């Protein structure tokens, strides 16, 4: 992260430019936080927001801001960060720009675990809801392990292409299983599962923020510390080995971190795709290929993207809502198509 004093001048310029990009995105996030806080069914003006923050506002304003709006806003930023960094890692280690926790079936694994859990425990009681993040994490972990196991070939290790293909196959299988399962649910649990699958920021209270925050605080700095290793893996297995990288060990570790971040994120938000795909792409467009910049910028863009999506989803069809996952898909699909068209020419 620190600009390197020994790097040539143009590289230092580039580092400075990258830091400017980070600063601008920070401003955008701040701006979006304010917009998001004052929009909703009950509008809070910037002045009212300021007063409420200082403890001046009415009880009603405080309740809306601190108990409903703020935790949801914080949560959407954190989930966006987790998914974006997860996608960033997966793209880095598979050397495939299409890798993303959604496409690799890691989100689907978490989803299946949640659906299974709900079909055994009715969702009306409080306890199962609180257990969901852990269930989702277990699901994503098992799925990732399965993908790794199936794409591992003795003597050759993991090939990026095989990893991706296995992931896509498993994701398809899990989705099919999930549809069969949802047919057997009662209407109330079906409702919840539908919301979960659409990718809504449903866990909007501070407890969920607290359950997600440690994952972000531990894993994202860890990934940034491993930026150079991801850079090296990006050169391909033979070159990375030649440079002295223990590729299998590092790849397994990074895969584990990607799964943990995706699982933790998805558990409080439902299956949101595209963030993990788009954010790293945009980051690379903005700051180049070096992961010391790509990772933090991906995280910030992911947070921003999901915050925008959730805010739009909250206001566009008032008083009802569109899940953030659907809004992201509406923004993300054209961007994705644009990338595909551009890469063909």
């Amino acid at each position, binding site marked *: 992260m620190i600009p390197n004093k020994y790097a040539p001048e143009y590289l230092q310029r580039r580092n400075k430019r990258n830091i400017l990009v980070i600063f601008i995105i920070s401003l955008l996030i701040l701006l979006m936080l304010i917009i998001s806080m004052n929009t909703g069914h009950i509008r809070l003006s910037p002045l009212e927001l300021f007063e409420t923050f200082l403890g001046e506002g009415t009880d009603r304003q405080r309740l809306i801001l601190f108990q409903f709006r703020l935790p949801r806003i914080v949560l959407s930023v954190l989930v966006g960060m987790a998914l974006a960094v997860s996608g960033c890692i997966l793209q880095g280690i598979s050397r495939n720009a299409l890798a993303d926790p959604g496409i690799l079936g890691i989100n689907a694994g978490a989803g299946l675990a949640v659906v299974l859990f709900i079909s055994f425990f009715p969702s009306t009681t409080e306890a199962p809801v609180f257990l969901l993040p852990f269930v989702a994490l277990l699901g994503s972990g098992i799925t990732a392990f399965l993908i790794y196991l199936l794409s591992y070939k003795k*003597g050759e290790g993991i090939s990026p292409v095989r990893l991706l293909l296995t992931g896509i196959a498993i994701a398809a299988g899990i989705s099919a299983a999930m549809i069969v399962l949802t047919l057997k649910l009662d209407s109330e649990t079906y409702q919840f599962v539908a919301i979960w699958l659409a990718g809504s920021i449903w866990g909007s209270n501070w407890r969920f923020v607290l359950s997600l925050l440690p994952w972000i605080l531990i894993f994202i700095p860890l990934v940034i510390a491993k930026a150079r290793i991801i850079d090296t893996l990006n050169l391909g297995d033979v070159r990375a*080995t*030649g*440079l*002295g990288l*223990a590729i299998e060990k590092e790849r397994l570790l990074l895969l584990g971190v990607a799964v943990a971040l995706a699982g933790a994120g998805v558990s409080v938000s439902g299956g949101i795709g595209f963030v993990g795909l788009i954010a790293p792409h945009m980051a690379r467009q903005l700051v180049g290929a070096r992961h010391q910049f790509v990772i933090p910028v991906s995280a910030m863009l992911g947070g921003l993207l999901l915050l925008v999506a959730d805010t739009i989803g909250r206001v566009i069809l008032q008083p009802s809502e569109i899940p953030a996952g659907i809004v992201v898909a509406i923004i993300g699909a054209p961007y994705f198509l644009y990338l595909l068209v551009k890469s063909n020419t």
Partner: protein
Amino acid sequence: MSNLFVEDVSVGYSGSPIIEGLSVSVPDQKITTIIGPNGCGKSTLLKAIARILKTDKGAVFLDGKAIHQLSTKKIAKRMAILPQSSEVPSGLTIFELVSYGRFPHQGGFGGLNLEDLKQIDWAIQVTGLSEFKDRSVEALSGGQRQRVWIAMALAQDTDILILDEPTTYLDLAHQLDILLLLEKLNIEEKRTIIMVLHDLNHASRFSHNMIAMKGGEIIKEGSPSKVMTYSTIQTVFEIDVNLTTCPFSHNPIFHSYQLSRDTQQLFENANEG
């Protein structure tokens, strides 16, 4: 004794051995070229030496220690590898890509130190890339890209360079350009170079030591004048050559060749007629 040698090595892909019980040593500070027809195991041998392929039996020894017992990072300070693949990661400048060569010398965190920078600058300069160094690698031609990869390997600061067909896909001038660069590195920097080449005349012109392989076995090894003989080339490649002497290196080269079976046919026809 040589620093790098292969002893009784068997190696192959998923259980089927390509090389069995092969031993050979690589002379220090010399250019060694492995030649042989497609599928003869020359790339496999090179990959085994570079620890990319695990040996099923036997071992590759570096400084008297079996290579699989050394840490991969330690080996990376002794030998650099240039594989065949031509794809480059997008969005990197030449300086950035060459700086990746410092990976085995860098600590866990930290950026580049002065020593790293010196090495990178020297590598860029010696490969003639100074004027391009802030340009994107993707924008370069094939020959320049190959120079960038060589620069990265040089930034790694190893005394051994391993190259798998470094001249493939390059036009004639750029092939020569890369080989002259390697020769210069060998003479001026005393680097040990081991490579696979398809062009026998290039191999003969630039090597001190040649290893001719066929069917996973070494048919002949030694100086170009020892290996580049009519009978050895006929055995290894099944071609008949008209040997002459290279005016530049004074090593044997040939100016044309014929498939051996066609030559035979020619003789048979002549006898009948």
